[in-house]
């Protein structure tokens, strides 16, 4: 039972530079972010299969979600 969390851009710095984090399924993305030390307010979006989902989304077993850094505005 695990999901893969992929921090993008500067968010990697908050996850000790890790490219992919394998976490237990169950919690919401927001809870996962807190657990690994990524400030949720720096996340522009959570991407599942190319679509934006909210930080309240609970990834299912085997799923990969990417968390996108807010980087530079328009």
């Amino acid at each position, binding site marked *: 039972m695990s999901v893969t969390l992929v921090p993008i851009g500067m968010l990697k710095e908050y996850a000790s530079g890790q490219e992919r984090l394998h976490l237990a399924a169950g919690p919401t993305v927001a809870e996962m972010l807190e657990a690994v030390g990524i400030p949720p307010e720096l996340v522009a979006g959570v991407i599942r299969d*190319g*679509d934006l989902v909210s930080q309240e989304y609970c990834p299912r077993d085997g799923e990969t979600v990417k968390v996108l850094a807010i980087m530079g505005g328009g």
Partner: protein
Amino acid sequence: MNGYAGRILRVNLSDGAITTEPTPEDVVRDFLGGRGLGAYLLWTEVPQGADPLGPENKLFISPGPLSGTLFPGAGKMDFTTRSPLTGGYADASMGGMLTAEIKYAGYDSIILEGISPKPVYLYIDDDTVELRDASEYWGMGSFALEKQLKDELGEEFQIATIGPAGENLVKYACINHDFGRQAGRGGVGTVMGAKKIKAIAVRGTGGIPIADVNEFIRLGKEAYRACKEADGFKAWTRYGTMIVTSWCDKNGALPTRNFQSGSFEDASNIYAPVFRRTIVVTDKGCFGCPSPCGKYAYSKKYDIYVEGPEYETNGMLGSDVGLSDIEDIAKANQLCDELGLDTISAGGCIAWAMECYEKGILDREQTDGLELRFGNAEATFALIERIARREGRLGSLLAEGVKHAAAEVGQGSERWAIHVKGMEQSAYDTHSATSMLLAYMTADVGAHHNRAWAITYDIAEGRDKVSPDKAAKVIELQHTRPLMDVLGCCRLQWVELGMSLDYYAPAVTALTGVEYSWEDLLHISERVWNLTRMIWVREVEDFGRGWDAPAPRFVEEPAVGGPTDGQFTPPEAAQQMLDYYYEQRGWDENGIPTPETLERMGLAELVEADSA
């Protein structure tokens, strides 16, 4: 002359003289192209005190060295002039296909000077350059004219136009191109209108000389691949800049009801997924773009097509005027584009007027019958039309910009006129973000975000923190982001996809054959920044610290609701940030570059020559 076309095209609209001259090698070595070349030409060619709408002001239309090449995002160009909106320095960058065409036609800059006795358009087909009568086009909308000229001249011509707003000298008229790309800010379209030049049509069939072709191709392909393989590629391409709407809303940065709040109760209706699901038809990119951020949309409600809204328009013609239906925002966007208005300034002016109306400072007679409440879509559409055509008392007033309008109306309305240096602030609330507030205060065209975007830094470091580090970050961004406008390429590959900045110096070196390090490029960007500051010093008699003041709302009045509820930046904190900033820039306490700084920037001789 590798990397450049090698010629500058000069068009005198007063007497119709059309000439070319060699691009000065030492100038492009020291200033590069785009906004760098434009700032240099503005400084050296436009006399002090020239009326922005008079014959002495000029419009410089400049691709950059990377424009038209295979480097990712090489579809940008820059319009530089003395701003009719602010009275100071202005440049506006524009994407699309025109920049490549100008370069292929053989020009590093097009200088428009004088005033034509009648409406004309500039026709360029490589070396064939003509001023053609445009009397029959005067009054046409931007999209309509672009289509007509494409029909008449051929699809391969790239066209830039102004709409009725530019003709009517609305102070924030924009230049339109490619059915949805704009040089939006500072009134560059107003200057075209004043010069009676309705459009520019360009076809180029030449090439760009490259010093080290193999190395440049290798770097370009590698950088392109890095963009395509970026983790965020799919999401950024799917949503474009609209993706930041929800983030701004949740972090108190989404301008709401004239920046009274940074969070909008109906914002979820205008988030990116709603936009993508309900109105987006297809993605649309500029020349050489690996990650098209443009979203071409269709509104069934209004039966219109429009490119957008992108984030800034979503904020300024959406939440900031209280609109929460994405199709209403698309309609307001389409009207502004067709009429030739900058959506950011238009939204800022309308939001100010709505607040005046709700506070009883403007009544129904003064709004020419409009029920000008936040959230009234029909009133918003009507006012956009009236501004563009200068119809009625309010339309005429708002056509001058919010600074002028507030000074005219008075009664305290200056307190909620959201601008810096006379330019309406773009779509980031700065009640509680000291770096971003400083970025707006010191941006060299007025309150525009494209010079430095620092809110994430505020959040990471502490939103209300006042520190030299924050000023340093703003300065770093003010050198890096506008560098893209100097090079003639888009910053979004870097800021959105995280494409490494390490590509730029080797690419410019391989292109031009001149050895540039990253530090060299940043130094050039800093040189340009100091020159644009000197343009303000030269053109505005009392220019100094007072011109870097933030909009009063952010330093006097707490935000209402949302995550920044009750927060604002104390005025002394804003001034302290300015002190740090001036000191690190090598400017005096009044914000004027010192002689030593000008010397260090290699500008002393240029400035001295002008004084003499």
